[in-house]
């Protein structure tokens, strides 16, 4: 299955995501999930960034939190709400909210 996972929190999400298996897995970081795409904890990036090559972060939620594209890990693509819609209809079939 092609699974798009909306990561909306920073803590308490890694274990759930680690269990999910899909032919194509996309992680879409929104709300406090954007911190996975921008922060290093004790010098280490989020383990979620190694889970799949399909990583996205919502630009509005970055800006809301005072973050910019410059803060985003190079593996993650910055997207808009319109891009989220396109991902939902063109790239993924099912969705999880974690």
């Amino acid at each position, binding site marked *: *299955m092609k*699974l798009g996972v909306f990561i909306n929190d920073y803590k308490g999400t890694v*274990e*759930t995501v680690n*269990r*999910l*298996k899909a032919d194509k897995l996309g992680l879409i970081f929104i709300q406090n999930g954007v911190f996975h795409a921008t922060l290093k904890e004790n010098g280490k990036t989020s383990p979620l960034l190694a889970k799949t090559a399909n990583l996205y972060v919502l630009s509005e939620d970055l800006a809301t939190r005072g973050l910019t594209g410059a803060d985003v890990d190079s593996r993650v693509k910055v997207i808009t709400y319109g891009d989220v819609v396109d991902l939902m209809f063109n790239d993924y079939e*099912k*969705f*999880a*909210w*974690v």
Partner: protein
Amino acid sequence: MADVKIACVVQRPPYKSETSTLGFTHAISSQVVEMLLEDGQNVIPTMCMVGEGIFNLLNNQKAMENYGVTSIESHGKNALLCDLDILVCKEDLVTFGIAEDRLLDAEDMGADKKLQIVPYSEIQKVMESSAHLLFF
């Protein structure tokens, strides 16, 4: 298109948030969805209890006595009575040290269905074979 299968994945623990309760009630509402669909069409949910979601299944819940609300245990029993499949992640029961005899059942209500304790891999299969996923 005849039936659409959905996976209701309950991962949130009970009571502090109403989310897991709504997971049960939404799944149970499948019993009446036919009235809004054409003949021969239906929505078939499978409940999948994972992570902290398994805490919803403990028996002997005293929610009505303490909070005046229908217990999640009662919703779970009703779900079984409605012949809904409720899969419970075996690995999570082990992780949290919850014995199977601590879990609800609806035998006293005459339900044929019981909770199904399965490996996570079976829950993954349900997610793969469902048209849509609803994470609670």
